[in-house]
């Protein structure tokens, strides 16, 4: 038996493979998904108030990827606490809530509402949200704003706080360090890349929102690089995410310095993706003579 348990900044997970935010809903949607190997899940991004989301079209397929612009549609924090958290409280894996807001105060308020609610195991702070006070620029694009958001969340909870980094920055290490300094327990790298696709019939963007976030295998080499850069910049653990379909893909992130991984888009295609990735990691470790994931050598040169 290969030991796949992971220590993620003090939190013990039963394996290295989590379900990524926005690709697993609230955990209740898809009956087929094999949950036996799931180490944890991150909820769809939630705001304080309900949001209707963006008009269709919301999805465009691209080569080995997809663009999405869902607009963080969701029921708001009250409905989440009422309808989903009680279910989560009985599940065998921890559920993280993906936090979204348009101001630093709102991030804090959202955290305060959720802190202590049974079923909520921790937080993943999505800083790829437009900062309304700063003209709509993403919080995550600015190391100072990213740090402030982290501090606001940190102040309201003792639960694990993960911060999900955006790839759309000149130097992800700077943001990573800023967020680490403000008390994040772990980083998730990375969120989707901003992309656009043009419909040649209407000669307008295919997405009603004009731009969307690119996910899927297309971004994997970019995500591995960014997760690696983040891991080199900080001491807290990094959760790798972006384009993972197979165990080999996940192992690229793990070798590149990640403590765990999240699988997103792949679960849209294959309900068994997470279990398959989990089992494949175990098989790789076994056939390479490792008895636990901890023994896997990481490639993290400090130069």
């Amino acid at each position: 038996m290969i030991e796949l348990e992971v220590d993620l900044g003090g939190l013990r997970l039963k394996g290295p493979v989590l379900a990524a935010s926005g690709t697993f809903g609230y955990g209740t949607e898809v009956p087929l998904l094999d949950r036996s190997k799931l180490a944890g899940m991150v909820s769809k991004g939630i705001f304080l108030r309900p949001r209707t989301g963006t008009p269709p079209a919301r999805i465009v397929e691209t080569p080995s990827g997809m663009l999405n612009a869902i607009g963080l549609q969701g029921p708001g924090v009250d409905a989440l606490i009422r309808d989903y958290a009680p279910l989560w409280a009985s599940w065998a894996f921890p559920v993280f809530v993906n936090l979204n807001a348009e101001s630093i105060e709102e991030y804090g308020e959202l955290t305060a509402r959720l802190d202590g609610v049974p079923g909520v195991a921790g937080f993943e702070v999505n800083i790829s949200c437009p900062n309304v006070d700063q003209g709509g620029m993403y919080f995550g694009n600015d190391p100072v704003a990213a740090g402030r958001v982290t501090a606001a969340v940190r102040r309201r909870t003792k639960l694990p706080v993960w911060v999900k980094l955006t790839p759309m920055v000149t130097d992800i290490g700077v943001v990573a360090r800023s967020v680490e300094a403000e008390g994040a327990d772990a980083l998730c790298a990375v969120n989707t890349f901003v992309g656009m696709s043009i419909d040649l019939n209407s000669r307008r963007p295919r997405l009603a929102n004009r731009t969307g976030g690119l996910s899927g295998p297309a971004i994997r080499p970019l995500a591995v690089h960014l997760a690696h850069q983040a891991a080199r910049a900080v001491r807290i653990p990094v959760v790798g995410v972006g384009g993972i379909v197979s165990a080999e893909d996940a192992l690229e992130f793990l070798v590149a310095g990640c403590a765990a991984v999240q699988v997103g888009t792949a679960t849209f295609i294959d309900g068994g993706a997470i279990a398959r990735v989990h089992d494949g990691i175990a098989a790789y470790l076994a056939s390479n003579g490792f008895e636990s994931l901890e023994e896997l050598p990481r490639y993290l040169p400090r130069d």
Partner: protein
Amino acid sequence: MFETSAPLVERRQVAREVFVLGFEAPEVAEAALPGQFVNLLLRPGPLLRRPFSVYRAAESRVEIVLRAVGVGTAQLLSLELGDRVSVLGPLGHGFAIDPGWRSLALVSGGLGVAPMPITAAAARRAGVEVIWVHGARTAADLCTEWEGERAAWATDDGSQGSRGSAVAAVPEGVDGVFACGPNPMLAAIAERWPDAQVAVETYMGCGTGVCLGCAVPKRAGGYDRACSEGPVYRAADVDWPALPGHLHYAVGV
């Protein structure tokens, strides 16, 4: 909902460039209801699954009807008998047949014919008379298969049946109207029969309710998921101007 690796066991042409493909997928065939769809995965092939209405489901076989419009459909049509695809389904909520109806019009434009055969069969089993109203650009594009006692045809060029749209060709006095076709056609249906049941098309990420990609704007506000609450809606409940009219080629290579 089942996921199964299903071999292609049937392929026949039913209109110009339009083919029916049959896959051996017993659990899916058994469970499929009128208006539900399956989500097909090709490997090698494009990243996402491709949704198709269940055309017929009988004798452990699920049939779909399609034309090549992009990479996925082209690849499906190049499959050889015995080749396998992953079939996920049945998915979504389909048509609800009221056994109290005497007559039901199945109104379809072009490939909107897709959910009609399975629906016609179910309606007849429920003792409802089926009137088939099928429109296309020209005679060669009309699906040559239909089920039901009466049929009305419509072509844009008048080469078969009445000239004009299928909507105009629906006879008066039917108790129920089910429609499928381009979204603008369904909007026209909504004008005339607010209570009609219509199957809408949207881009889909997952087909299983989790990605929120298949948003259908509701007249009452907010969005539904075509793959879960839909794809069949009461016609008047959809906010038609907010729904993209035509879905186009997207992937490339």
